[in-house]
């Protein structure tokens, strides 16, 4: 199902931090993993990903280290303790938001 991009734009940081909560990842791996876990619903553009990642790094929500794998040196992003706290806050906000949207949508269909 195609979704409106504007629905995703506000939750991109939440999605990225959720991915990194499990393991450290490099940029391309995040795009592939996000598409796989969402059944290709969320296909993040490269041009969107890196400014967000660099912003998270500037805010110290993630840290970066260079690691060699398959003969290539990649930048791996890892969530910090501050990042985990931000993730919990964003999850709670998202849950509340989704509940309120459901409440309005369902009440409209009942009326």
């Amino acid at each position, binding site marked *: 199902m195609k979704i409106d991009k504007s629905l995703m734009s506000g939750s991109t940081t939440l999605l990225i931090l959720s991915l990194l909560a499990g393991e450290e990842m*490099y*940029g*391309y791996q995040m795009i*592939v993993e996000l598409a796989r876990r969402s059944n290709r619903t969320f296909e993040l*553009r*490269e*041009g*969107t990903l*890196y*400014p967000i990642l*660099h*912003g998270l790094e*500037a805010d110290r929500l993630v840290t970066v280290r260079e690691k060699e794998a398959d003969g*290539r*040196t*990649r*930048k791996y992003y890892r969530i910090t303790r501050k990042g985990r706290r931000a993730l919990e806050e964003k999850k709670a906000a998202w849950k509340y938001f989704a509940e309120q949207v459901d409440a309005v949508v369902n009440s409209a269909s009942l009326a």
Partner: protein
Amino acid sequence: MRDEFQIWVDAVCEQVRFWPDRKGIEKELRIHYEDHCRALERLNYEPKLAAERSLRAMGNAQEVGWALDRIHKPWLGWLWKFSEGTLLMLVLIVLWLTVSAGGVEQLIFRTRQQLEWTDPPAWADHVSLECGDVYLAPGEVRETGGNVEAELRFWVKVREPVPDFQPWELEVADNRGAVSFREWGDGRRQTSGYLEWERVPYWGWTRHQMTLRLILDYRPDWVEVSAPGGGRDWVLRAEWEEEP
């Protein structure tokens, strides 16, 4: 198509005003692009098509560049670089001060103890060198456990640091010629008598004072002290009055 990626990434980096970050951004985007190309080639895409698709997926170069520029703010980047530079300079200054003060051990030693500089007495034997002044005065003579302990007080005031002046490589001789002594900075000793060298806390980088404690089985009449360097040969003598 590889060249087209270079054009794309150059267009991205042009938008990033904080130029020291451009190299890192280019490297990260290039690896991402190559990862994507390889993934598509593994799905049996023709290399040319894989490169085209990968480049298209990277998005609009200017928009990506603007977005990155908003994160890599020039003032923040330069402030960070300036902080790094300042920190490096501070470390270098501390290192320089430490080395000038005679090493870490002495720096700690100096800060832990009350620093008291005692001026040499007017009657102390004295020599003026190109680099400064050296003084020697006899101290107490005590009898302890069948031995005689004779103290010497030694001062060095260096106006200009002179590399060849080594006031710590002392040579000591007494009137009977029984004491022959050299002390090196690392603490090695070569003596036929027995000499204790106690370094007293010193103040500043150019004033040093120390006590030389000579332990002999007789009372010396005089002791001569010299050290290499300082522009000319010099010998200072400390004399004790004869026992009544």
